[in-house]
């Protein structure tokens, strides 16, 4: 992969990532993450 192609790929990945974050925040995924993360996750500790 030459440097120009790599630079284009990098920009595409970065913009896609930022776009995905905006979509996720807009549809309320952060609330789901927060709700899960502030309670003891029984599956995570092997009791679920």
């Amino acid at each position: 992969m030459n440097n120009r192609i790599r630079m284009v790929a990098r920009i595409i990945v970065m913009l896609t990532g930022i776009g995905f974050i905006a979509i996720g925040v807009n549809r309320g995924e952060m609330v789901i993450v927060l709700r899960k993360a502030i309670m003891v996750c029984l599956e995570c500790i092997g009791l679920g």
Partner: protein
Amino acid sequence: MKSIDIKRKLIQIAAFGFTNFHMGNFAKGQIYNGKWKQFCSPGLNCYSCPAANLACPIGAMQSVASSSMKFSFYVVGVLMAIGVVLGRGVCGYLCPFGLLQELLFKIKSPKIKIPKFLTWTKYVILVLFVIVLPALWVSSLGIAKPWFCEYICPVGTLEAGIPLLLVNAGLRNIIGPIFSLKLGILIAVIVLSIVCYRFFCKVMCPLGAIYGLLNKVSLLHIECDKRKCSSCGLCSKACGMAVNPALNSRSPECILCGKCVGVCKREALRLIMINRKDVNKDIDIKDSKSFKNNI
């Protein structure tokens, strides 16, 4: 210890401290439940760990996948944005479990190398246990579950399971066969991390699999100046992740720790954030200061 190793260790310790800011919660047997938990940590760190400040990206990805949304744009977007800058440098510098494995590997014991094909296991785990099963498998009660967290993740058992069970009698009463399975996996990972450098990162970590793919385009990378390289093999011997940076400096296995940079006598390898423009131009090796020092 070389200066690049010292700097990396300091960054690892700082990242460990920031990701696990609430150490006092271990004694209380409770977890932090503030607003920071809506943000994902870059490395693998269980959000049920009493000290955890941030959400685990793999756990968060599964919890959204097992909801009605099925795919987490937010978590995948965060991982893409971090990965395109740091690549697997996250594993080498920011992951608390990576630091722990490095400390375990310092224990004196016979050391082994794992077969290369085993490194593909982490991609299978990523696709099957993190993406497909949490989104598609639903129980008869209509409940989906985080398969990686429930059946595999040794980080949750170590950082959250054991500390919470030690101080919470109520939780101890509901220990079942899944805990025994996870404890067995944790013990196996600890033993294998003593004899094999970063065993979990190489074979099992789905987060490492994601960042590894982004190593191909990441800003932080190892650059090899082929004109200075004498193919001495010192770099590949020094690499704990079994990478040969002279042949493939953007290997998905490379955690960008910089050990190869430290051992290269000709300064052919560099750990950099941006491309060096002169790397493909004609360089007279005999004019190089480092070359003169070596002969």
